[in-house]
């Protein structure tokens, strides 16, 4: 009771031995409710980046991509391709797998693609590195797999990507 102005108190309820009791179903539900924010605090449902790289012939390919992010969030696949040879490469083509990239929306590739999701990089100097960025927005849920390929002449290098889009 709130502090009184010298008046008596109405009868107070007797106390009980206070402790927690749950039914099994209730407990399981509560654990699920508690688990979700705890996992979220540890970043389980947040954006996570993956990094893959491969090397073949005169090319080295490094890709930084979203391993998981959420529906309608915007992210990007960053492709770094390096000419590891001692000669110039006239045309180096970086291609995004259609099966992968078409699962996203509002796709913007820089430099602009020349065919579908293929970008031509011209006159790559020895030891030179070029960047191709594909901005993608989560559109379809769950896992999307595909490849990024870099090709120059007879040299081809590819890496596998896998992105999970949370609903």
């Amino acid at each position, binding site marked *: 009771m709130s502090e009184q102005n010298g008046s008596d108190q*109405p009868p107070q309820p007797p106390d009980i031995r206070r402790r927690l009791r749950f039914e099994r179903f209730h407990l399981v539900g509560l654990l699920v409710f508690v688990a*979700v*924010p705890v996992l979220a605090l540890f970043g389980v449902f947040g954006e996570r980046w993956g990094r893959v790289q491969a090397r073949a012939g005169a090319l080295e390919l490094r890709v930084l991509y979203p391993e998981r992010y959420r529906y309608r969030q915007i992210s990007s696949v960053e492709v770094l391709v390096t000419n590891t040879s001692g000669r110039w490469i006239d045309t180096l083509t970086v291609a995004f797998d259609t099966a992968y990239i078409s699962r996203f929306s509002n796709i913007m590739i820089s430099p602009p693609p020349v065919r579908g999701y293929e970008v031509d990089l011209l006159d790559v100097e020895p030891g030179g590195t070029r960047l191709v960025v594909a901005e993608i927005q*989560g559109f379809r849920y769950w896992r999307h797999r595909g490849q990024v390929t870099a090709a120059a002449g007879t040299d081809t290098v590819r890496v596998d990507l896998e992105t999970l889009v949370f609903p």
Partner: protein
Amino acid sequence: METVIRVAFVYVFVLFALRVVGKREFGQLTPFDLVTLLLIPDLVTQALLREDYSMTNAVIALCTLFTLVFMTSVLTHLSRRSQEIIEGTPTVLVHDGRFIERNMNQQRVPPEEVYAELRKAGLERLDEALWVILETDGRISVVPKRDWDGGAAASEERGEDRAA
């Protein structure tokens, strides 16, 4: 992670603000009812309209809110002191037929409202009430005096008064 922190902050802030505002503003709801009912539609709306449109974000926000509600109920159940702090305590407005003016002023309850509650309880006069208590959910409880016989005594008394 940001969602969890945001929900936790808003929950604690709104709960604190409602405790500060006082019991009279709650009407028929407990503070927990009100906080929960305020936040649930807002969270769902935010999930639909804010930058993060994902259901994942909405589910995280709702689970965070339910977890906080659950933790609050655990705390108030296990600790009487916590219960008093979080839910507040009932306030005596009338004892033994007399207003407790200090409490009425603190809780901003006018005498007219007390009389309205007396009438709802079938009482006519203040001296027929042993206790009038503002409960933690904002409702007012009226406890008649033990020797009050449901109005007959009061009628007789009025008759005597008129006879006198």
